[in-house]
C-alpha cells in the first residue's frame, strides 16, 4: 500500500513540474469543449433555395413567402426556366429548387391537392435530408392556411424538446475529451520511463508489477475525473445542457469508463518501446472506435457488423450511458448493461497491461 502511495506521489510531482503537460491536461479539454459543440452541429441554416414558379398565382406566391419566412431557407434569384435552374444547382449557386407547376392554384382550389416538385443538392446527404424535413414542415404549415382539410402532424421531440444540438453533442464531447486526455497520458507515460531508462531502476526494485501499473493508473484517473468535472460545469453553465440524471451515477459510469480507457492506454504503453509507437496505437484505436461509437451518427443506421463491433467499443457504451443519464435521467437499471460492459472491459485491459509489463526480459 505504501509503495503505491509513493508511486502516485512521484507521478503527481512529475506532472505538476511538467510545464508542457499541465496546460495540456487542463486547458486543452476546456477549449475543446468550448469549440467542438459549435462545430459538430448538424443544424443547417440559410439553405439557398431557388423557386421556379410557373404558376404566378397568389397561392404560389404565398407558398414562396412561407419558405422565405423560414430561417432555414434563403431565397436566391429565381431562374427563368428549368434548364437555368438545373444549371444553378450544378454550379453550386443553389442548394435546393422548388418547382411550382402551372395550374398549381387551380388544382389546389378544385381538388384540395396540388403537386409541387422539390430537388436538393445531396452531395452532403445530411444537409439534404435536413432541408427535406424543413421543407415538409413548411409545406404542412402552408397546407393548414391554404386549405380547410389540413390535418397537420405536429411532432413533439422528447428529452430534447428544442432539438438543441449542444444538448445532444456536449455529453458526447465530454466523454471524448476525458478519453483523449486519459488515453494519451496513460499510453505515453509508462513508455517514457522506458525511453529515459528510469524503468530499469524500477525493475530492479521489489515493486510488484500491479503496484507499478496502479501507480500509473490512479493519477491519470484523477486528472481525467477533474477534467470531467470542469466539463460538466461548462455543459451546465455555458451550454445550459440539463443534467437530468443523478450526478453520482454520471461519475460512477465515468469511473468505469476511464478504467477501460486507461487500461487500454497502459496496455499500449506496456507493449511499445517508444512513445511514437504508443501514440500511434492510441491514435489509431481512438479514430476507429470514436467514429464507430455513434458520437456523430446514430449507430442504428450503421451496417450490422459495425453495430456488433460496438459491443466491444468502450466509447459506444460510454457515450450512450452518459447521454442517457444526462438527457433522459436514466437510472442505474437503465445503464446497467453499459456499466458491466465497461467494468469487464476495463478489468481485462488492466489485467493485460499488468501481464504485458515485464520486469524481467527473456
Amino acid at each position: 500500500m505504501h509503495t503505491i502511495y509513493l508511486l502516485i506521489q512521484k507521478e503527481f510531482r512529475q506532472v505538476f513540474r511538467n510545464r508542457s503537460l499541465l496546460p495540456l491536461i487542463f486547458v486543452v479539454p476546456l477549449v475543446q469543449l468550448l469549440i467542438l459543440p459549435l462545430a459538430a452541429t448538424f443544424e443547417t441554416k440559410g439553405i439557398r433555395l431557388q423557386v421556379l414558379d410557373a404558376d404566378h398565382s397568389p397561392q404560389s406566391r404565398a407558398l414562396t413567402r412561407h419558405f422565405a419566412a423560414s430561417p432555414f431557407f434563403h431565397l436566391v434569384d429565381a431562374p427563368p426556366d428549368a434548364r437555368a435552374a438545373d444549371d444553378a444547382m450544378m454550379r453550386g449557386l443553389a442548394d435546393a429548387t422548388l418547382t411550382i407547376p402551372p395550374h398549381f392554384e387551380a388544382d389546389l382550389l378544385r381538388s384540395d391537392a396540388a403537386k409541387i416538385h422539390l430537388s436538393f443538392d445531396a452531395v452532403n446527404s445530411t444537409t439534404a435530408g435536413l432541408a427535406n424535413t424543413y421543407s415538409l414542415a413548411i409545406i404542412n404549415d402552408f397546407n393548414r392556411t391554404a386549405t380547410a382539410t389540413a390535418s397537420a402532424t405536429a411532432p413533439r421531440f422528447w428529452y430534447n424538446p428544442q432539438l438543441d444540438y449542444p444538448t445532444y453533442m456536449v455529453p458526447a464531447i465530454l466523454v471524448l475529451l476525458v478519453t483523449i486526455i486519459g488515453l494519451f497520458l496513460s499510453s505515453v507515460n509508462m513508455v517514457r520511463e522506458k525511453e529515459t531508462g528510469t524503468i530499469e531502476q524500477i525493475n530492479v526494485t521489489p515493486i510488484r508489477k500491479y503496484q507499478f501499473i496502479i501507480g500509473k493508473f490512479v493519477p491519470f484517473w484523477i486528472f481525467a475525473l477533474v477534467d470531467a468535472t470542469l466539463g460538466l460545469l461548462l455543459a451546465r453553465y455555458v451550454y445550459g445542457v440539463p443534467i437530468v440524471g443523478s450526478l453520482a451515477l454520471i461519475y460512477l459510469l465515468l469511473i468505469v469508463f476511464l478504467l477501460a480507457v486507461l487500461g487500454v492506454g497502459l496496455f499500449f504503453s506496456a507493449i511499445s518501446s517508444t512513445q511514437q509507437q504508443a501514440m500511434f496505437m492510441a491514435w489509431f484505436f481512438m479514430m476507429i472506435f470514436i467514429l464507430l461509437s455513434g458520437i456523430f451518427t446514430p449507430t442504428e443506421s450503421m451496417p450490422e457488423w459495425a453495430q456488433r463491433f460496438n459491443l466491444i467499443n468502450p466509447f459506444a457504451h460510454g457515450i450512450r450511458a452518459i447521454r442517457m443519464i444526462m438527457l433522459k435521467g436514466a437510472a442505474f437499471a437503465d445503464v446497467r448493461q453499459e456499466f458491466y460492459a465497461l467494468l469487464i472491459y476495463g478489468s481485462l485491459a488492466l489485467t493485460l497491461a499488468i501481464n504485458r509489463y515485464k520486469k524481467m526480459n527473456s
Partner: protein
Amino acid sequence: MMNVIETHELHKAFGSFTAVDRISFAVAQGEIFGFLGANGAGKTTAIRMLCGLLKPTSGAATVAGCNVFTQPEQIKRRIGYMSQRFSLYEDLTVAENMAFYGGIYGLRRREVRRRADELCRRLDFGHARHTLIRDIPPGWRQKLAFLTAIFHHPTIVFLDEPTGGVDPLTRRQFWTLIYEAAHEGITVFVTTHYMDEAEYCDRLSIMVDGRIVAIDPPETLKKRYHADSMNEVFLRVVNG
C-alpha cells in the same frame, strides 16, 4: 567466508548469438569485485541476469542466497543496481529520489530522513538536497545515483560502468564512496573500462567473447602476465 554470488555454467543466448558463455565464478561477501571485459564481451548481459532483469538461458546462479531462475523478486530486495544509463528521476529533487527509492525498499520515513541527512553530510551536499536532479552536474549525479543504489543498505550493489564520462577527481571521490560502502559490509560488483580503477578491486575477472578467461586479485594477474600494470594485463588477455 560466505559467497554472495555463485554461478555455475550460467549461459545466455539471443537466438544464435551467445552473449554469455557458461560462466562459473563466486564472489565473497564484502569483496570489491571488478568485472572487466571489452565492449560487447557480455558484462552487462551477465549483470542483468544476476539482477533478475534478464532470464538466463541455462545454468545456475544464486545471488544473496536466492536463485536467479525462481526467486528474482527476492533477489531484488537484497541488491542495489546502478545501470550504465543514468536513471534517477531528473524531475525530482535529490531528497525526493532518495525518499522514493528508500520507501520502496520499506524504509520508514524517519529512517529515510536520517539516512538522507547522513549521506548528504558525507558528500557535503546538504545545500543541494532540494535541487532537481536535472540541475545537478553529471559527476555529482553519478555519486548521487550510487548513494541512492545503496540507500537501503543492500547485500550487494551492482555498478555497471558507474564512472563513464566522469573526470579523474570525481572518479577518485567515487571510489572513496565505494570503499566506504565495502567497509559497511556491502559487496561491490563493478564493471569499468578504467584500469586504474581495476587496481582498486580485491579481485578481478576478465571476460572475452562471453567467457571468463581470467579471475584473480590484480597482483596475481600482473605476475602471471608479467605486466607492470592492469592496463597491460588487460591488453594481453583480450588480444589472446
